[in-house]
């Protein structure tokens, strides 16, 4: 059986207390003024409880309907609201819930007001049932009249309660006339009953009303096996009991009692409406067999959370207002649930009611009076997650709202993603820096451990530099200016595992370089704009000697860099500052004491000022440079420069200056920044530099590995020169020796020669003859 005739009636119940003018309540009223059209009005409105009862043979089609549609719902939904409650009790319930309905074709509905709005209909098919319900209409009207008479003065006229004769339980008797007239219903409202009376001979009763009594226990009704409707509203019942035989029961109203636990409903398999509002129930339990239950009211109880709602496969309406619910789960297991009232609970975050989003049937939700409803994101989050929703907090959701919600949600999402991205990048940056720092520390320790013995500090530094070059390679820098952030984030996501060894970052006008590998970034093609913007370059965790090698590149790529920062760069010697002289211009220099021992020297600032005086620097380590500083610097080191420039032999001067030039050439050739214009510009620069500052230009810095290289070269040359000079000197010594021997021999030789000559010319005549003879011979 699919008896439920959907929304109008039921939904009016939900909405009427919010907006009475809109309730369809009026519609039936209007129709009802025309008696002939009652059935039609039935179709249109009111809660239709169509009940099929096989046990009733003749009047199998039983219709119970009261004109006041809304009040039943008000009961079910709203009795928890004390204000309404009292007013209803005062007049609405007792007298007439809606005076406008009174003049309608049933003038006296007083007794049945509690049921008004409820329509019980018995039939296989509700719609077809309406078709042949012509007899039922008079039945109903009769019932109502009967009810009316049995109302406030039940005991007086028609009903006799034999309370005096039977001390244990009062026995109820009705006159036969009454029985005939209202054979299927009995109202014992406001009878000050403390126990259920024994009702004899009324096995055919279908409707029983014990409202507003003091009953503490459900008793003596197990014989009423045809009972469909049982109303025990406003009693003092502490436990659900005595209902196990009432297999036909469809509507069980137990509101405003003292029930602590849902129990003993095992046999009530046909239950359609279960009202337990205003009790002390702290858990939803023992209801999983109620597969026909459509309305469950648990408002004003002590529920803390909603869970385990399996089996309630027909539930369309669940009222949970005014509990202390913090989380709702399992709602998505209710395939028919359309209306869920969660107002005035303690739900504070959307995650706690996330299951609502998974329900496909929900169309109406109230969440007002919860902390969550105060949140700025409340509405659009709910709307975003529950596209199927038609009403939220009794307000119809417009397309506009839905669109807004989705826009806001999208924005929110984007923002979240962006911030996530940011944090990811930040985190990655942090990790990278940590990693670089660790590597750096390791390196430094190794370096520090190396030269423990003696002067080999330099020698042991050489491998370490090689090592850090190796470290630097084979990683990717995330590029600042590509603009495509998505690849960044993806690499970042993967990259968190593979931590990089260096970091390059442009932040505003500052270029940050962490780790020696970052220096390679100077080879990249930086956009003109970025390069122009950068005025500060910060080096961290990089050997100063490595920085020195890229200074020419820095000069070309970031021509506007005026402020250099060094932190953890192993600046240990004053002479290292010489290297900075080759830059175009420096206004500010910041040498962090961390990892730069040179800063501990008292003279370092003056040396910097002296050596870089041609830049006329403004600030060193944040302090303004004064004229006195400059003079002091000159006083301290001026002589050094003077000696260096004036006392060096010409060839040395040339070679020292030439080295600067040579070095620049060398870098240019090596360096990847092969700009054709760069070379000539470079040349001019160095000329200018030399012209401006010759006496200082001789003070230059060669990085340690270059220097050792140079020393090697010198050694080679020396070796050659040594052998060369050795040979030369030996030769000279030999010559000298020969000469000396000649000198020794010569006097004797000379004497001998003279003697020979003298002997020859001793005989003058014969000598003359001989001479003449020679002359004639030659002729």
């Amino acid at each position, binding site marked *: 059986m699919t008896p439920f005739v959907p929304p109008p009636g039921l939904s009016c119940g939900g909405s009427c207390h919010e907006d009475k003018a809109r309730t369809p309540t009026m519609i039936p009223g209007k129709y009802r003024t025309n008696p002939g059209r009652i059935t039609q009005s039935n179709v249109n409105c009111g809660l239709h409880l169509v009940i099929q009862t096989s046990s009733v043979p003749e009047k199998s089609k039983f219709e119970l309907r009261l004109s006041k549609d809304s009040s039943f719902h008000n009961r079910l939904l709203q009795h928890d609201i004390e204000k309404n409650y009292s007013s209803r009790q005062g007049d609405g319930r007792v007298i007439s819930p809606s005076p406008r309905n009174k003049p309608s074709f049933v003038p006296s509905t007083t007794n049945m007001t509690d049921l008004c709005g409820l329509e019980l209909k018995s039939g296989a098919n509700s719609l077809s049932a309406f078709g042949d319900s012509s007899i039922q209409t008079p039945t109903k009207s009769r019932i109502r009249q009967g009810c009316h008479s049995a109302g406030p003065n039940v005991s007086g006229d028609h009903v006799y309660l034999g309370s005096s004769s039977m001390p244990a339980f009062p026995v109820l008797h009705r006159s036969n006339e009454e029985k005939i007239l209202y054979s299927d219903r009995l109202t014992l409202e406001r009878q000050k009953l403390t126990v259920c009376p024994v009702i004899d001979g009324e096995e055919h009763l279908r409707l029983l009303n014990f409202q507003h009594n003091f009953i503490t226990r459900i008793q003596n009704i197990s014989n009423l096996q045809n009972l469909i409707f049982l109303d025990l509203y406003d009693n003092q019942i502490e436990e659900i009991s005595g209902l196990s035989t009432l297999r036909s029961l469809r509507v069980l109203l137990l509101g405003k009692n003292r029930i602590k636990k849902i129990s003993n409903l095992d046999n009530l398999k046909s239950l359609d409406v279960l009202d337990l509002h205003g009790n002390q129930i702290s858990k939803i339990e023992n209801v999983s067999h109620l597969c026909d239950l459509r309305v469950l009211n648990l408002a004003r109880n002590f529920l803390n959370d909603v869970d385990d709602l399996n089996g309630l496969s027909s539930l369309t309406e669940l009222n949970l207002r005014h509990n202390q619910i913090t989380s709702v789960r399992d709602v998505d297991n209710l395939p028919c649930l359309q209306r869920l009232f969660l107002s005035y609970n303690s739900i504070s975050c959307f995650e706690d009611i996330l299951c609502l989003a998974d329900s496909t049937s929900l169309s109406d939700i109230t969440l007002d009076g919860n902390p969550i409803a105060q949140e700025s994101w409340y509405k659009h989050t709910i709307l975003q997650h529950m596209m199927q929703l038609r009403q939220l907090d009794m307000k119809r959701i417009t397309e506009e709202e839905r669109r807004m919600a989705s826009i806001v949600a999208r924005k929110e999402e984007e923002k979240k993603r962006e911030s996530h991205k940011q944090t990811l990048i930040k985190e990655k940056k942090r990790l990278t820096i940590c990693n670089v720092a660790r590597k750096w520390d390791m390196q430094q320790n190794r370096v520090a451990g190396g030269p423990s013995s*003696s*002067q080999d500090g330099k020698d042991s530094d050489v491998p370490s530099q090689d090592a850090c070059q190796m470290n630097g390679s084979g990683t990717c820098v995330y590029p600042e200016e590509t603009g495509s952030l998505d690849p960044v984030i993806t690499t970042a996501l993967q990259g968190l595992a593979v931590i990089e060894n260096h970091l390059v970052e442009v932040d505003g006008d500052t270029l940050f370089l962490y780790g020696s590998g970052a220096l390679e970034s100077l080879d990249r093609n930086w956009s003109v704009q970025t390069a122009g913007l950068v005025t500060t370059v910060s080096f961290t965790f990089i050997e100063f000697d490595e920085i020195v090698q890229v200074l020419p590149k820095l000069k070309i790529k970031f021509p506007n860099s005026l402020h250099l920062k060094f932190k953890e760069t192993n600046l240990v010697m*004053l002479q290292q500052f010489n290297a900075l002289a080759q830059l175009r211009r420096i206004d500010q220099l910041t040498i962090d004491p961390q990892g730069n021992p040179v800063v501990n020297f008292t003279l370092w600032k003056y040396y910097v000022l002296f050596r870089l005086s041609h830049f006329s620097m403004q600030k060193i380590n944040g302090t303004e440079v004064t004229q006195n500083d400059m003079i002091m610097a000159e006083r301290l080191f001026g002589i050094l420069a003077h000696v260096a420039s004036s006392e060096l032999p010409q060839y040395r001067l040339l070679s020292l200056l030439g080295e600067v030039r040579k070095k620049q050439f060398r870098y240019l050739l090596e360096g990847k920044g092969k700009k054709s214009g760069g070379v000539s510009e470079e040349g001019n620069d160095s000329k200018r530099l030399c012209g401006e500052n010759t006496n200082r230009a001789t003070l230059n810095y060669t990085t340690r590995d270059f220097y050792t290289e140079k020393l090697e070269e010198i050694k080679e040359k020396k070796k050659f020169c040594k052998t060369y*000079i050795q040979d030369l000197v030996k030769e000279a010594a030999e010559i000298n020796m020969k000469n000396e021997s000649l000198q020794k021999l010569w006097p004797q030789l000379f004497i001998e020669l003279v003697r020979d000559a003298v002997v020859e010319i001793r005989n003058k005549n014969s000598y003359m003859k001989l001479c003449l003879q020679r002359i004639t011979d030659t002729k």
Partner: protein
Amino acid sequence: MLSPDRLALPDYEYLAQRHVLTYMEDAVSQLLENREDITQYGIARFFTEYFNSVCQGTHILFREFSFIQATPHNRASFLRAFWRCFRTVGKNGDLLTMKEYHCLLQLLCPDFPLELTQKAARIVLMDDAMDCLMSFSDFLFAFQIQFYYSEFLESVAAIYQDLLTGKNPNTVIVPTSSSGQHRQRPALSETSALEGVEASLFYQCLENLCDRHKYSCPPPALVKEVLSNVQRLTFYGFLVALSKHHGINQALGALPDKGDLMHDPAMDEELERLVVRSRLHRTSQKHRSHQAVAFGFRRSDKVEALESLPSTSTQMPYLCRESRE
């Protein structure tokens, strides 16, 4: 010029002993290194300049350590250059750490070994905290001894250790040394709990050492003088005494007396000029002029105008140099 020793040795050895070969070798290697530059202005000129600078002691500036320590003359020249260049630091009254002095040394000789500086600092600081501050003169004189006589001091240290541990370092080399010494030895080492070794004994060993030592060593007479003043002394005590001895300083000839250490009028004049110039340079840089040609002259005009110059007599060479630059 030609000493009679010359005839006692073969030419080659003589030249080597007098370090002539060292300079010849160095000259040639310098020539090789700066071939392009030198060929521009003539090889003869180069040799002239080279040997002139050797005579003046300026040849060691910015050279590698192996060359600087190669000859006593080089060492003396280096000491003198260091004094001249950084006298102002001492004059300023700054006390510096060993590392800072080392840095200054490295400004003149990029590969100057830390070890030598450390040893020199140890003489001043007596092995205490090595991070202490030292005055310029203390360091300079200690450094002088350590640097100039470094090989000698190493041998002395070995001898001292031997003496301390009770071995007689001279037994092999000087077998004639009195056996009395041998007998004294154990007693001595016991009393050496007093610290140090006996001065006279120490001197005997040192005298021997000086005789056979091929490196330069302080004149034995002066060493004797140093040691005759005390009964016992420690190694560092000995070094301190050496470093503070005027005679040794004079014999070495690189540095002026301690009293005159801050005194270098020629350089002071030069410095004054430089300071004035730097001041002008800075101001002129502020309203930066592009006329590089007129620069020197304009500046010198200002110098004259400034009148703060101590001596006007030296102004001419200064101007010449200025224009040469």
